[in-house]
């Protein structure tokens, strides 16, 4: 047995496909480990399915590396934050504190949106007022917004804290009074009279970050200084963090979806899930299938008859319709999907293992074992199992991709586990939002490639196993 095993192992190492397969597998395992250590286990419910968490991200943005191929054509997403007070001086009954962030517009593109965020505002007497203004590269100034912090409630005691749990978000595109400000600005600066209604039509970003050009606007490159002014009644009042979100057209390593979710995170989380499903389903399936196959082949008789009949029926059921039916009825929890895949997976293995056992049974050393009075179970475990083991192992590996693909297909039909991001689910969401018809390639290509990559890993390893199981194939290489 040992010699045979060694031979098989060297045979396995000799093939190129198995080397590639194992290399791929180690990549998958490393990524899965990394993800499990860096992501919380409830990532899906806590972050992925929580739209608020992604509120500052651009929607449907391409990956950043696209700029590498098209020569920095697209604007990168930027979040500029500061907690340091730039200047502080008294002003009548007020104390003024300013916070500054600097933004450099380098490409010929307009930002897609602007959001202002204030975290953690503290005040001690009357509520302060916050103003934000921007100084453009041409030294003109635009007042972007003015917001008064909510006054204290009768039950509250100073110091009063605001925007601690959830920051105050001001989406500039949703501020109607800004159209009037910008209309006046255009009249003063360029002698251009545009009705406030039409300013909103053009888009605030174009006016703020651009200059009139022919019949529209063109981006004005250069340095923009965003100054946030706090009008406080108490010298101790302050804003914890000021952030200016400049919406870009490209984001991160893999872009974003329609909710602004960072696709690279969802794709990463898909690795451990796929590995788990593939391995758990294939191991369980093989255990059941191999046990029943050995029993059926060695014990025979009534047990054999029953097992064979059940397998005949189960093997002839079209899989996907039944899987759809069952997951639909019992809900798409991950463990339910695993159980269903196992339930309908084992019969195909039984038939093959049984025929191998029948062959092994007739060999002389089994007869010898019987003659010295070894028990049936002992023979099955000690003598029969080792003979069929390599084959069972190969089947197990070969089962893994079909489990991964089945789960992806169910997820794509909208029957997956909603609390866990999987590749199939990302694809489903993309497909339902028309990503395929609008050409959002970064939303539909990577998840599919990941599915193929993980499935093909196990196919390669299984192919590497083939000459081990089937010595006649060794001559072919």
């Amino acid at each position, binding site marked *: 047995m040992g010699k045979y095993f060694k031979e098989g192992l060297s045979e396995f190492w000799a093939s190129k496909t198995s080397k590639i397969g194992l290399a791929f597998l180690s990549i998958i395992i490393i990524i899965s480990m990394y993800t499990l250590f860096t992501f919380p286990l409830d990532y899906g419910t806590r972050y992925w399915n929580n739209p608020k968490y992604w509120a500052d991200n651009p929607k449907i943005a391409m990956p950043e590396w696209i700029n590498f191929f098209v020569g920095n054509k697209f604007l990168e997403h930027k979040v500029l934050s500061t907690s340091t007070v730039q200047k502080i001086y008294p002003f009548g009954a007020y104390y003024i504190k300013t916070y500054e962030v600097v933004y450099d517009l380098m490409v010929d593109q307009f930002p897609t949106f602007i959001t202002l965020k204030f975290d953690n505002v503290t005040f001690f007497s009357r509520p302060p007022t916050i103003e934000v203004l921007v100084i453009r590269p041409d030294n003109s100034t635009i007042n972007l917004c003015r917001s008064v912090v909510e006054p204290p409630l009768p039950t509250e005691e100073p110091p009063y804290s605001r925007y601690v749990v959830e920051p105050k978000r001001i989406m500039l595109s949703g501020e109607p009074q800004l159209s009037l400000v910008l209309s006046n600005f255009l009249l003063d600066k360029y002698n251009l009279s545009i009705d406030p209604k039409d300013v909103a039509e053009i888009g605030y970003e174009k006016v703020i970050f651009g200059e009139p050009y022919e019949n529209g606007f063109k981006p004005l490159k250069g340095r923009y200084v965003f100054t946030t002014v706090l009008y406080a009644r108490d010298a101790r009042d302050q804003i914890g963090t000021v952030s200016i979100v400049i919406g870009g057209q490209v984001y991160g390593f893999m872009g974003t979806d329609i909710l602004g979710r960072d696709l690279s995170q969802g794709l990463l989380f898909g690795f451990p899930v796929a590995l788990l499903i593939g391995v758990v389903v294939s191991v369980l399936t093989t255990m059941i299938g191999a046990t029943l196959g050995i029993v059926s082949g060695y014990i025979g008789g009534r047990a054999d008859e029953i097992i064979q009949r059940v397998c005949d029926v189960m093997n002839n059921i079209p899989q996907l*319709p039944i899987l759809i*039916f069952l997951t639909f009825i019992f809900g798409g929890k991950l463990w339910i999907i695993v159980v269903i895949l196992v339930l309908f997976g084992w019969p195909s293995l039984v038939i093959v293992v049984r025929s191998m056992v029948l062959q092994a049974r007739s060999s002389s050393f089994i007869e010898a074992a019987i003659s010295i009075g070894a028990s049936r179970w002992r023979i099955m475990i000690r003598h029969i199992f080792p003979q069929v083991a390599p084959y069972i192992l190969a089947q197990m590996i070969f089962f893994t991709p079909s489990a991964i693909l089945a789960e992806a297909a169910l997820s794509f039909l909208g029957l997956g586990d909603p609390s866990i991001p999987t590749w199939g689910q990302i694809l489903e969401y993309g497909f339902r939002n028309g990503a395929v018809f609008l050409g959002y390639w970064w939303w539909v290509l990577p998840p*599919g490639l990941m599915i193929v990559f993980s499935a093909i890993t196990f*196919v390669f390893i299984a192919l590497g196993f083939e000459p081990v199981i089937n010595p006649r194939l060794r001559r072919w290489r």
Partner: protein
Amino acid sequence: MGLKRALTFKAASLVVVLLFVLLLTTIIIGATGISDKILNGMVRDNLRAIRQELAREIRNPEDLERALEKIKEDLIRSYGLDKPWYVRMPDMIWRIVTLDLGNSRTVVSFSGSNKISDIILERLPNTVLLMITVLIINFALSLVIGVRVATKPGSFLDRLISMYSAVSYALPTWWLGILMILVFAFYLKIFPFGGMYSTPPPVDPLIRSLDLVWHLCLPVLTLVIATSGSWIYITRSIVITTAQEDFVSIARAKGLSERIVLWRYIIRPAAPPILTNLILSLAAYLGGAILTETIFSWPGMGLLYFEAIMSVDEALILALTYMYTLIYVIARFVLEVLYVIVDPRVRYEWASILKKV
């Protein structure tokens, strides 16, 4: 005589499969209370229709309510809702078989009916059209390419095919469909994004059928690329094994031409195992077809599955599961018949098995 008996035996075993699926589904929907939900829905639909008719005859609202209450009790009795689900099982199985499952929740047939049987029977031909087209193309491809590759094992083309079949095993058909749409419909604009006809559909019959073929191209191409790899590979392996048999060497020794040897001595005996593998790959293929229809909005039963899931329509999903099992069983049977025709050995084999039984 053996032929008939062998086929009867096969048919019987396939009917058992169908019955098993029916039993499994009815037990599940019975035990989870979904069958009550479906039947109650049917009672409601019936009452709605009756109410409108009675309202014309009975003017007094109180009398109307009383009459309706009585009719409702009769309906509940006739649908068996007053008995537990396991007593109703034979009746429920019969309902599934005849697709008598009432109305769908939101999906409507092309002619505007919402009866489940109407919806499904309307879509059945579209699914069958797509599947048969792909089957024929696959069969032709596997014969032509598979045999060709088998005559030169180890050649570059042979290695390419082996690689391709390994890759296609790991390639989800539906994702390939997404790729196809992106490339051929979105970027190159050669083929339509999906559907069966352009909107509005052409009136002229010739142009209409050309339009249909144009819409068929992408889904068919997708399914062929995804499934033909394994078919070609299987054909190749079987032809290679057959070519090493002694009778082939003898035929060559007799001085028969290479063509005759190939067709009569290699492909003829290789046909039955090829068919067997066809039979085995049919189930996987069916699954691919369901999702491909969804991707290409091909108005068949696969797309209907997607719509039924979206509108949480248990009755429709139940009916579809049964229909797909039925299609599968029928296709299996057709292939079995072919198998018996192609392989005379089977007849005797089966006959001897049946004698033992």
